[in-house]
Structure formats: C-alpha cells, structure tokens
C-alpha cells in the first residue's frame, strides 16, 4: 500500500508541492479533490519537497486534498485492443468503453540507437503535386504543416493520412476544437480506417496541461506497433498547443525563459517527440505528420522556428495552397531519383521559374513595362498555380510530371529553361 499525503504546501499555476519521501523523479501521483481525481507528475525533487504538475489543473485543489503516489511513471497500453478506440490525453477511454491495461509500456522511452535505423526509402504518394513532385513525403519522415488559424490544415492532414498506404494510424489531438475532433473521427470512420486507428484526444475545453501527455502516449503506442513490424502514421495536431502548455509549466516553475517566454529546452523537448519517427532495421516504421500553427503567421516565432530545426522539412499551407517557397521535404532526394528520370529536373526548374515569376509579378505591380521574358513568366505562373498548386488537383506523380513538361513547353523555348540538353532531347514535348 502506497502512502497517502494530506498536506499540500503550495499551489501555484498548475503545480503543487508536497512533502514526501521515497518518490521517484517523473513518477505519477493521483490528486483527489472535491472536483475528482487527476493524474499528476513529479517534475522536481528538492530534499523532502516534491513538485508535481497536475494534469487536470490545480483549480479547486485545496491544501488538505489527498496526494497518492503510484510509484511508477506514466504508462500506456500497447495492446492491439487499442485499435478502434478513443482516449483522453491521459489515457482514459473517451468512448465509454472499458479501459485497457494489458501490455503496459512506459511513455517517453529511450532513443533508438542510430545504428538500428535505416535510410528511409519508400515514397508515400499523396496525389498532391506540390507534395509528390516538389516535396515528396517519405515513410518514417517527420514533417509538420506550418499554417495559421483558419487554413484547412486539419483537412489537409486528414487527406494525406487517408491516401497514405500505412498499416496503422495513431491520432494525437491537442487543444482540438470539438468539431475538428468529430471531423477526424468521422473521416476515419467513413474511409473505413477507424478500426486500424487509435485516437488520443485532448480538446480545447480540457485542462491545458493534459495535452502534454498526448504526443508521448501516441508515440509510445506507435513505437510498440512499429516494433511489431507495422508501418505506423502518427498525426499530431496542433503541436503549438503542446509547446504552449510546456511554456505555462516552465513559467510556473520560474524557469528563465530564452525566447518570448518559451523555455530554453523547447528544442530538446520537441525533438524528443519528433525523433520518435523511425525506419527500424528489420521492423516497422513511424511517420509523423504534425500541424504547427504559427502565431501571427511568423515563422521565426520560437515554436515553428524550433520545429523547423528538428523536422525533416515542412509544408507551408497558406491561402489554401501549399507554398512552393519555404515548403521542403528533406528526404525527397532519398526517393525522387527512383521515380522517374525527369523528376528532379522538373522539380528544380519549375520552382526556379516560379520564383522568377514572383519577381516579375512584383515588377508588374509597380507598373514597370513588361519585357517579352516577363510576359512568358506571367503566363507560366498562372498555369503553374492552376495546374500544380491548386489543392483540388489530385493526380498521380507521373501525370503531374507530364503536365510539368507541357506547361514549360507552352511557355518557354528549350534553352530558356536551363535544363541539361540530354534531358531536353528526351522529354521536351515535340
């Protein structure tokens, strides 16, 4: 029987302190107040004083409430029975069905030994030219969608998830609007994917700090499945809520902020999650697609900035389109040399010319006379936006490459493209 403590010394923010002994760092405790029972986690030990973050928040917790230490860190079931189920951020069933406690694994486990990783090699086809042609998504990639409120990022996330060929989908929602939760659930259901999915859902109306557990829970389950040879896709939306919850705790703990109030270890904390993406040597894989909303559409804000330094590229979703600039798949070169010989050159050339188009557009808006070259670029830019960038376009990669050559040939002479002569000879439409 574990000891129960009845004297809470301090309550500040969502952190409480008690005097207790024999408590392990990061162990869990249950805090029982008149509002019910919440999980809490040890975040500091100092002599006999234990600080805990209370996942349901400290509101209503009183000094005389009960704290019971569980003697272990957070765990989650990794059993196949999870499939088709929906849980809260702290792992309680959200679907009214019984809890699952078999095959418990500790969350936030150790790193994979880099020598047990292999080079990613399988392209995930999405039917979206801005992804398939220009920034191919690769199995085991970690990649966020950078966007702002109001953009259809959750729709895009769901669309990619539905088109991707994976065995299992693990969904982690943080600060999710209830509508968005239903949208994901219904989409999974309609496409018949719910039975191979697990959802951990923290909604906007749930206590803020509870979302801190979501990525670790989702990824721990994903890891267990991947070790069992499954190709797992993890969806995390919105990681900005996760980062903000961390900031809240850091401020309560009086940590010195590094940048705009965010803790100095934001990078390490985010990396610990994203780095769970893996292609195992002789087992399955984990691919992570996330959403990061950028406060004020500012990519230099600490959340997108640190994320960009961690992930293997990002898709910028702006004005309902995936922006060619700034969007990047760093793993694309692992796969785009095995698709079609002209893949890379189409990718490079079309983007370069689109950049030139943007410049011309600027000149035009300033009222400058357009040269014949400018006119060509203007025509090109229009076609590129309509036939490549528009998110309604849903075509296989090969068709998109053909369309690329067609657009180039309609707009330019051969030498104006800067493409190597041998490729021109082979692919330039006659």
């Amino acid at each position, binding site marked *: 029987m574990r000891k129960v403590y009845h004297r809470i010394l301090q309550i500040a923010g969502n952190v409480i302190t008690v005097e207790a*002994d*024999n*408590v*392990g*760092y*990061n*162990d869990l405790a249950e805090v029982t107040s008149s509002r019910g029972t919440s999980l809490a986690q040890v975040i*500091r*030990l*100092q*002599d*006999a004083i234990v600080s805990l973050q209370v996942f349901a928040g400290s509101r209503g917790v009183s000094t005389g409430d009960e704290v019971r230490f569980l003697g272990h*860190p957070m765990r989650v079931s990794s059993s196949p029975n999870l499939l088709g189920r929906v849980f809260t951020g702290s792992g309680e069933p959200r679907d009214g069905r019984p809890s699952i406690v078999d095959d418990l694994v*500790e969350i*936030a486990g*150790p*790193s*994979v*030994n*880099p*020598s*047990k*990783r292999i080079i*990613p090699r399988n392209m995930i086809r999405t039917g979206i030219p801005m992804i398939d042609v220009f920034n191919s998504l690769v199995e085991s990639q970690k990649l966020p969608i950078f966007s702002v409120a109001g953009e259809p990022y959750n729709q895009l996330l769901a669309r990619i998830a539905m088109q991707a060929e994976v065995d299992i989908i693990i969904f982690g929602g943080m600060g999710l609007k209830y509508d968005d939760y239903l949208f994901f659930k219904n989409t999974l259901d309609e496409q018949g994917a719910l039975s191979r999915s697990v959802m951990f859902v923290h909604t906007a109306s749930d206590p803020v700090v509870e979302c801190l557990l979501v990525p670790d829970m989702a990824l721990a389950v994903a890891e267990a499945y991947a*070790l069992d040879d499954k190709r797992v896709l993890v969806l995390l939306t919105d990681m900005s809520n996760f980062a903000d919850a961390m900031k809240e705790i850091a401020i309560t703990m009086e940590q*010195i*902020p*590094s*940048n705009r109030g965010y803790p*100095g*270890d934001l*990078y*390490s904390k985010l*990396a*610990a999650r994203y*780095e*769970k*993406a*893996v292609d195992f040597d002789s*087992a399955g894989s984990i691919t992570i697609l996330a959403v990061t909303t950028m406060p004020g559409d500012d990519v*230099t804000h*600490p959340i997108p*900035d640190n994320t*960009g330094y*961690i992930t293997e*590229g*990002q898709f910028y979703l702006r004005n309902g389109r995936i922006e060619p600039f*700034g969007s990047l798949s*760093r793993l694309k070169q692992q796969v785009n040399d095995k698709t079609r010989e002209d893949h890379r050159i189409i990718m*490079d050339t079309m983007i370069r010319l689109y*950049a030139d188009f943007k410049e011309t557009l600027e*000149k035009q808006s*300033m009222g*400058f*006379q357009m*040269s014949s*070259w*400018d006119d060509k670029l203007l025509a090109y830019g229009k076609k590129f936006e309509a036939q490549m960038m528009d998110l309604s376009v849903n075509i296989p990669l090969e068709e998109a490459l053909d369309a690329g050559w067609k657009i180039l040939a309609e707009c330019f002479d051969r*030498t104006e493209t*800067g493409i190597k002569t041998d490729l021109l000879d082979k692919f330039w439409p006659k």
Partner: protein
Amino acid sequence: MGDDMLDNNAGRIVGVNGNIITAEFDTHVTQNEVAYIVVGEERLKGEVIRVRGKRVDIQTFEDTVGLKVGDKIEFTDELLSVELGPGLLTMVYDGLQNPLNELAEKSGFFLKRGFYLPALNYERKWEFTPSAAKGDSLKAGDAVGCVPEGIFTHRIMVPFSLKGSWKVVEVAAAGEYKIDDIVAKIADEKGGTADVKMVQTWPVKIPITAYKEKLLPEDQLITQQRIIDTFFPVATGGTFCVPGPFGAGKTVLQHALSQHAEADIVIIAACGERAGEVVEILREFPHLPDPRTGKTLMDRSIIICNTSSMPVAAREASVYTAVTLAEYYRQMGLNCLLLADSTSRWAQALREMSGRLEEIPGEEAFPAYLESLIAGFYERAGLVKLNDGTTGSVTIGGTVSPAGGNFEEPVTQGTLKVVGAFHGLSRDRSNARRFPAIHPLDSWSHYRSIVEPEKIGVARQLLIRGNEINQMMKVVGEEGTHTDDYMIYQKSEFLDYVYLQQNTFDDIDGATSKERQIRMFDKVLAVLESKFKVESKDDARKYMQELRQMFIDWNYSKMDSDEFNALEKKIDAKIAEKL
C-alpha cells in the same frame, strides 16, 4: 572507465531537476569529475559541474526518471575522458565515446540507460613496429613505435599527461600486441617510471598540446566546393562557421565536405541534430569510395553522434570528445577535419544546464560565459609543428543554427569573433534553390584562395555591381536600365549559376578539383571581362542564357573527357560570336 576506482567516496541525492542532480558528499569532490548514480542495477554516469559547501550539482548523461532522494552516488576522482589508441577510425560513438554498433549488438533497438561499453577493442591485435630504442630521450607525444591502422601509420606515443623528459628503459620487439599490452617502459630523471601502452586516456575538456608550437595556417584545405575554395577558402588548421536558418543547407554542405574535403581524417560530430542525417553517413560511408586512397570514406572517418533526442548533457560533451580525437590524430602528423553540426545545440545544452543551476543569464538566457567557451573550442583547431618537426593539423568547421535565422544572436556572434572564415547561408538563396546557399556578398574568409586575388576582385566587383543594378531595376524597371548595366547584371547571374552554384547530388558537379576550378574560373572570367556586342536587353539575356546552358553542360562532364573538350571548344566559339 572508473569502475574499479571506488575510493569509498560516496554521496546521496538530495534533489532532482531535469538532468541536474544535487547531491551531498562524504569526503571530497573534484570539479568536473565523473560520478555515478546507483539505482538498483543501473549506474548512471554524470559530471560534477558545481560544488557548494557539502553539496554538488551533477549533470547526468542519462534520463533521470525514477531517481529518488537518498539514492547513492559514487564519485570517481576522474575527469570525463576518452580512450585514445588504434581502432578509433571507422568507429561510431555517442557523445561519451560509447560505440553505438556494439551497443546495438548487446542491447538492441534502444539506447539502454546506464549501459556503457569500452570505446576500443581490447582483444584485437595490432602489428607493432618499435621506433624508439633503449636509452632514447623522449617527451610526451613522442613515438615509441607505430601500428598500421588502415592506410595510416598510427603512432604509439608517450602519454600526453607525462611531464618533462623520459628515457626509454625497454621497448617491446616488433610483433602483435593488444592495446592494453605494455609496449615500452620509460623512466624520468628522478627515477619515476611509466608504462607506455597503445591506449591512453585523456580528459576531453583539456586540449592536447604535446607539440612544439602552433603555426599560422596558410595552405588551403581543398573542399572541392567552388564557392568555398575560390571565394571563401578554408585553411588547413583553420576554422570556419556555417550559420544559416533551418533548411538552408548546413548539413548538406557539411556532408559534401565530409566526402570531398582533402583531409586525412574526418571527424563528424552530429551534435543534437537529427538521427536520420547520421544514418545516411553510417550506411553510405562504408560503401563510398575515397578517390584519394582507393579505400572507403569510412576508413578515414570517425563519427560522434549525439542526436537531439539523446541525453542533453552528453551532447555538451560530444563536441569535446570529437575535438580530442582530432587532436590525437594531429599528434601523428595528420590533417584532421572536424565538422560539428550544430554548435548551437551544444550552446543550448549549456543554456539548459545553466538555467537549471539558476545562474544569472546573459542574452537569450545563454550563460554569460558562452563566448569564452566558443572561443576555447575553436582555439583547439590549428596547424602545429610536432616535436619531430613534422606538422599536423585540426581544422574545425561548425554550423550554427540561429533562432529565427537571425545572425544577431549570441552563438553566431560569439562564433564570428573567433573563426577565420564565415560561410553565411541565406534563406533567399535556399528558397530560390541556389545551392550551396552561401551568400556571396555577406560571407568572408581570412584565408588565401586558390585563385589570384586580382581575379577574385574582378568577380566580386561584378557581383556587387550586379546586385546594385538588380536592386535598381526593382525601382526603375528594366526599361529604365542601360543595356550595359543590364549586361553586368546578366553576367553576375551567369557567374552565380555556373560557378557559385553547384549540384551537390551530382557525381561530377558535386566535387570540383582544384585544377578544374582554376581552369574553369579563367573561362568564366573570360566571359565576365568580355565586352559583348549585344543589340538589346532581350538579345543580352538570350545570349547569356545560351552561354549559361553550355557552361552547365560543361560542369556535368568529366574533366578532360572528349565531351569536356568538345564543350570547351563550343564555349570558346560562343564567346567569340559576340566579340
């Protein structure tokens, strides 16, 4: 290793805050000594980083989950050290020099907490040839003999920690020995004796200085990257940094250098970055041929890999581990290139530690002593004259990942103060896919180029003018620009496309030898300096685009091949066309 060094000096945990443990000790402690936290079967390594009264702060190199107040600490009295000896090459280590492949064999997919292995193979035998004789007088760093390690002659040296002059008492005969065998016995004037083994240990945070003197780095370290060797060169024994926003191409550039730079030994420190990027090296280097030696790239490499999800304190140690290994091979008269990606992650590890210690923070919460640590790290680079008169070098190139891509931040600024070359990557250039995205106007180097300074001057001037004209055209439009100016702009674009930009992923274009660069640059210069007769701006643009096309084809052709020669003729004819 410290395991057998238990001198009863123990302590107990009194606090845990992230990876910082506060402990009370019984007898004495040494700043920066290694301590082990004992939890059941596990012994977790840590380093003492602050002593206050009867309490010490220890940064642990492991996850601290489950640690309790009262858990036992063992102090070792030894500073954090690495093992030096034959067999380091081709190894893949974590930041504390644990061999990752061997760990994987023993503990599988995950890095098990508190599981450590020796850095070197103590069973393997090496073919030792003595070079010292009984009665010889030697100093620290002098060789007593050597063993072949791959294509290199690995010197077995008098331990660096020995002071003064030593006489050889005995040297082992030529033959096979394990690294722990004694290959020589030496004695000093006062009658002290010491054993020389093939393996010695050295504390990572202290530079190895068993050489005669430091020299001024003058010779280029050829990287085969045109924009670097020609415009912003790196010297053998020099330092350079590559700051840039995320995705601007720091890592790709470092990988290119690790493959193509003409150094003897390359040490790659993957410090707090993505594991996936290291995997590419781990999996590819054993198969990529090193054209200079006929062996694989792995045979000249050591990889230190403490990626972002691995323990933060070990990340801090990893850059020191890496530079110590580089210094070790420098002592053998070899040229070592250390590539650290990213030094900002190291600085962040310092920041996390400093924050937990509640030190008074400097800018952006980095510790106030950050600059001196950065300077101290780059100071470990250098060209040195060894005791035997030969030279060896350590060249250090570090990437910097500034928050928000803004170079006005402590790590970039602290680094710029101490390095010899600055390769600043630009977001605009990487967005426009102009790789390598080194900014041709903002970057600089204090070292000497492979091309004469006058020629570089012409090219730089043209880039500056071209940029000015481009800016002006944005205001007055093309129509308001004189055709001569327009031509200058076109020429600067031409220089950018055919010379500054380079396709890293192409076998031929990805690496341009010194000879080829010199030859190519002259040809490019011929274009830049020619006064072409063009009728209009359209004519100018078209002509320059055609020239560009030819040069690009030329870049992709193998040097001195028939195709190469034919293209050169075509280019000459094209240049003559408008003269």
